[in-house]
């Protein structure tokens, strides 16, 4: 079962890294124009970058989960999964946030997608945590 969880976490990690690329405001050609005429990305773009920072360790966690057979390792990996899932939710929901305009794609698509993916990550990791505590030593 942990092999399946590991593969699912890797898939979720890829989705967390890729989704913002297509749904942040910059991907729709929207940027902030400064007083000097230069343009700069909106904050949803930085949320997308931060999600890559969550996705990379999450992919490693998923990969290790597929390989690991020790109960303690699986428990620790599941705890990491929960934390990373929480972070994936926290970046768009509060830590960095998304744009203020309710009709922008980062609000309508990127934020709900990241929150859903983060919730799935945390949910699967919680199930993994419970199962790893109940399971006998696999090795």
């Amino acid at each position, binding site marked *: 079962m942990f092999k399946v969880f590991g593969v699912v976490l890797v898939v979720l990690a890829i989705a967390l890294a890729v989704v913002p690329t297509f749904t942040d405001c910059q991907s729709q050609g929207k940027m902030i124009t400064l007083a000097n005429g230069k343009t700069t990305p909106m904050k949803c773009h930085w949320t997308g970058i931060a999600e890559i920072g969550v996705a990379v360790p999450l992919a490693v966690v998923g990969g290790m989960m597929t390989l690991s057979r020790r109960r303690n390792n699986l428990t620790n990996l599941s705890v990491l999964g929960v934390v990373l899932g929480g972070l994936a939710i926290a970046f768009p929901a509060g830590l960095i946030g998304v744009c*203020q*305009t*309710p*009709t922008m*794609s980062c*609000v*309508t*698509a990127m934020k*709900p*997608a990241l*929150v*859903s993916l983060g919730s799935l990550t945390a949910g699967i990791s919680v199930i993994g945590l419970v199962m790893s505590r109940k399971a006998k030593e696999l090795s």
Partner: protein
Amino acid sequence: MNVFRIALRNIRGNAVKSLTVFMCVLGVAAFFVATTLIVRGAQNSLERGLERLGADILVVPTGAENKMESAILMGTPIKLWMPKQNLEKVSQIEGVSQATPQIYLQSLFGAPCCAVNEMFMVVFDPETDFSVTPWLNQHMGRGLAKGEVIGGTHIFLLEGEEYLKLYGYNLDLIGTLEPTGIGIDATLFMTMETAQELAKYSPQTAILPLEIPKDSISSVMVKVKPGVNPHAVSVQIEREIGGVVPIESPNLFGAFRQQMLGLLGVFIVMLGLAYIVSAVLIGLVFSMAAHERRREMAVLRATGATPFFIFRTLWTEAALLAVAGGAAGVALSSITIYIFRDYLAGTLGTPFLFPSFGSFMGLFVLALALSLATVSIAVVVPAYRISRQEPALAMKE
């Protein structure tokens, strides 16, 4: 051993069959709920929007009907002008209870204030208005003072800002209206006094001045007297006032309603196809499973079980899978639609408002009933056949 326990054991015993039936039912229920939510969501939204307008008839300049509809529906700014005298003329028509003017303006393109590139602004006359003023009186206990505005649910103040800056003028956003799912959500409402103030200062404070032609209005909102047919009043307005078109509120969004009807037709056909394919597949899977278990059923018959008991066992098994699959389908599609509602509305180009809890529960029960019906129809033949088989023959095989 009771029917329920046998059914549960059978579900656990044949995981592939159970999963196939579960997924088929989940698919049908999810599709049914998703399509119903989208169509009902659009209807809800239109009804809420019409309620917010509060008018029985809208009088606009000739040729502006479609523009007017898209302004209300999608919040697309429009420029309509007609002589102010039309208000007087409309008020004098027999059967008209109240008539109030509105002026339509728009913000400068890409103004940092706004939810959209060009924000639709509606100017009303607080003396005669029956659209926004009742809401203001109910929620604020007063009307709008000079420089004060209210907006739809998508109108907001920028972080750290106290005022909404339009044409270089600081407007005080004192409230936001409840969501309607249509363009009103991205519309700003202000009084004639505030609009005149904006127009007065805009040549000095904005890149482009705000122009409001003298003695002109954009539309007249009409409320008819109780018991009077709005259509008769509408015909009268068309006959007596030149250069204007009355739009009765039930006919508003006519093109959109047609579009939704077309979409509903496509949805019904697709749902029908999905329903038939699922029912056939479930029937097939159950036939195969029943064929494999004919000896087991024969033993049950030999130990005294009646054909009706066998039939009930198989039907209960199917019903349990139907309820579980149906509930999962409803949960999956409604959560997805709820989370991505704004994205879906934007992509499909339809207004959308999630239904009330009561309607949603009704939909939930309907989806479960549909799932149960699908599975019942699919299993009735294989269940009947296996329940009627001769035990001795089945065991001999």
